[in-house]
């Protein structure tokens, strides 16, 4: 019995080897190089449940880039494969699952780079693992400043190799995103006295602190500052307490799975019809998307909501990108239009694939470990720049984008044939300041 099993295993190995060799002889594509096998691009995002509205369109951004690379014949003789792992547990992002997934990527020598994560708290547990493994990680959406900037404690996340930058991101940071909304709310919306609620997570509290600091500098007052954990469902106590202090607006630091939609809904129920503002965590898709702010609060309740995106909202190639995305995913029942972070995820995948291409040009016969390190070294080099869908992207010595755009969105209940959606208002490039 035992020997039979070993025999079967050996047979399987032979089969795989045969499949590989036959693959190399029948290599399609126009490139002259032979098919050397498959390399993987990991995707680490929360993809299910209430997080699907965030994760799925983002994942598909990366998928589009990988599929296009394969259609063009692969890169340097390699085929590419997308390896998405979902770290949503019960529909919410889960740090432990995120850490496990990153271990899986690190342990798979064929993974040359990872797109993700979405939530900064997940970034905090993943970066030490990917840093040890020397695995490139490009986040389309992480905004917490501590992940990259040494003055905010980034070195704690890359203790073993502090000089080895493996984590890069195309999103702007919360020390930009929070203050940007503060300025917008104060100057454009004319708000003066705010209720500030955060979800006491890495991201939510961080962005709310940054917001509040700038808000007070501008001369705004804070009616109440409250932390309400991500399991909160009853915000009525907070709302009633704040009502006595006559706030003229609300800033929510957090994400929708933490309760942004419920807070907004209960505010409107208590007759508090004041603008609702927040970071990118609240801008998560149209009214019919599963778990979206507009869906939970109701489109009419969601009117008067303003959110930021830590990414360029109106990028030069947006129309082409949207068309390509919709063409590619037109057979899918859900999430067949780009989300807020589809473009950035596409750009992240582009950066990883471009680095792979450049590295393989210089050393075409490198083994998988060398490829992984080569991609990391190329992508994180501040002197390199990448032509991406977001513009000419490059990364500073910490791995932060040199294109820190903040875009402003508002809810239009009539958009998308009356189901309600976020519509773009304006964008500001904070890199030039």
């Amino acid at each position, binding site marked *: 019995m035992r020997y039979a099993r070993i025999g079967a295993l050996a047979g399987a190995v032979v089969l795989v080897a045969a499949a590989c060799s036959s693959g190399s002889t029948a290599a399609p594509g126009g490139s002259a190089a032979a098919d050397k096998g498959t390399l993987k691009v990991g995707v680490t995002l929360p993809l299910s449940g209430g997080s699907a509205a965030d994760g799925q369109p983002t994942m598909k951004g990366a998928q589009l880039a990988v599929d296009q690379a394969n259609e063009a014949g692969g890169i340097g003789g390699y085929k590419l494969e997308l390896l998405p792992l979902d770290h949503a547990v*019960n529909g919410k992002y889960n740090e432990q699952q995120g850490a496990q997934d990153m271990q899986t990527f690190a342990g798979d020598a064929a993974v040359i780079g990872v797109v993700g994560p979405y939530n900064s708290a997940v970034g905090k547990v993943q970066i030490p693992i990917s840093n040890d493994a020397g695995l490139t990680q490009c986040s389309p959406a992480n905004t917490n400043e501590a992940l990259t900037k040494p003055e905010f404690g980034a070195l704690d996340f890359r203790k073993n190799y502090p000089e080895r930058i493996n984590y890069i991101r195309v999103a702007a940071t919360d020390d930009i995103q929070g203050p940007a909304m503060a300025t917008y709310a104060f100057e454009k919306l004319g708000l003066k006295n705010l209720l500030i609620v955060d979800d006491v997570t890495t991201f939510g509290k961080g962005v709310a602190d940054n917001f509040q600091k700038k808000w007070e500098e501008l001369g705004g007052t804070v009616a*109440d500052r409250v932390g309400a*954990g991500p399991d909160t*469902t009853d915000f009525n106590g907070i709302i*009633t*307490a704040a009502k006595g202090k006559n706030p003229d607006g609300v800033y929510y630091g957090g994400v929708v799975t933490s309760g942004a939609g419920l807070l907004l809904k209960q505010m409107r129920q208590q007759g508090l019809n004041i603008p609702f503002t927040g970071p990118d965590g609240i801008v998560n898709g149209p009214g019919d998307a599963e778990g979206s702010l507009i869906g*939970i609060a109701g489109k009419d309740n969601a009117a008067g909501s303003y959110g930021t995106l830590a990414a360029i909202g109106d990028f030069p190639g947006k129309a082409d990108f949207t068309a390509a995305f919709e063409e590619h995913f037109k057979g899918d029942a859900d999430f067949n239009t780009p989300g807020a972070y589809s473009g950035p995820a596409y750009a992240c995948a582009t950066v990883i694939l471009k680095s792979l291409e450049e590295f393989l040009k210089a050393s075409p016969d490198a083994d998988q470990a060398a490829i992984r390190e080569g991609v990391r070294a190329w992508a994180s080099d501040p002197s390199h720049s990448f032509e991406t869908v977001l513009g000419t992207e490059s990364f500073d010595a910490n791995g932060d984008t040199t294109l820190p755009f903040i875009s402003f969105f508002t809810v239009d209940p009539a958009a998308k044939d009356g189901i309600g959606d976020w519509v773009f208002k304006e964008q500001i490039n904070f890199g030039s300041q």
Partner: protein
Amino acid sequence: MTTIAPAAPPSALERFQGLHLGPYLFTLGFAFVAYLVIGPEQFVNALTIGAIYALVAIGYTMVYGIIELINFAHGDVFMVGAFCSMFVLTEVLGQDGPIHDPVTLAVVLFIDFAVTMLVLGVLGMAIERFAYRPLRNAPRLAPLITAIGVSFILQNVIQIIYGPSPINTPQIIDPNVRVEILGISIGWVNIFVIVTAVVLMIVLQLVVGRTKIGRAMRSTAQDRQAAQLMGVDINRTIAITFLIGSALAGAAGVVQGLYFGNIQFTLGFQAGLKAFTAAVLGGIGNITGAALGGFLIGFVEVTAAALGFFVWGQAAVFAVLIITLVFRPAGLLGQQLGERT
């Protein structure tokens, strides 16, 4: 307890002590202090959320009282109640928003409550029949683990059917309609939740205190074997206890949906934990105690929120539990149960 001279007639103070009003006065005093601290509108919030906790807590306490099982699946029974109510409202009655005609509203509410409570009562009986009864004479740990297993089964079944995201449920009582009472603006839905809970609790007290089945429940709780010898059908009595407890959890699920308008399959865990705390706080096994405990927890939570310590709300709930248990290890009303606890 205390040494009383046998001949002396009871003084006024002793007669007062004999009434055992302490726990009620404590709760009233606590409510009064909370009222002064948080103001009338927050007080209504606290009563509303406390009413939901109280309804769930009663189910915990009834089951513990009769078979000494901490029914960890009870929070999830409550969650199933919320989903059942949503199913009745949307799929059976075709409702998707507020109903403004009072007659229609009353009819829809009646059907919703009747169907949900009946379905949940049967569910509770089924859980007892298939998960707990076979283990009734097994070591204590076995039914406890089974209860946790039932909890996971209920969660996963609802997750498979409705998905893991929070979903909206119709708020047929328009949550934006408010009335002015003594200068305080109160939502109709708040009043409805509180009144429903109080009415259900009064009916329950009457059932337990005045009916034959109530007497059977009390005698089974006191001494199962003796009750059996006296001709009480133990299996039937325990099944009816589960029926009533689960039906109340179903009613709590209905009002949860009406009040928040948004439900999720994980709802039961948090609510169950708090209701269990309420049951222990009030003295587990004691129905009035569970109701008092539920309201107390509502007050603690909302007071924490009103004072700007929202994030400490849960810690405050458990701090109150620990302090109470230090001074009254059997809970607020636990003493009246004698050796049971």
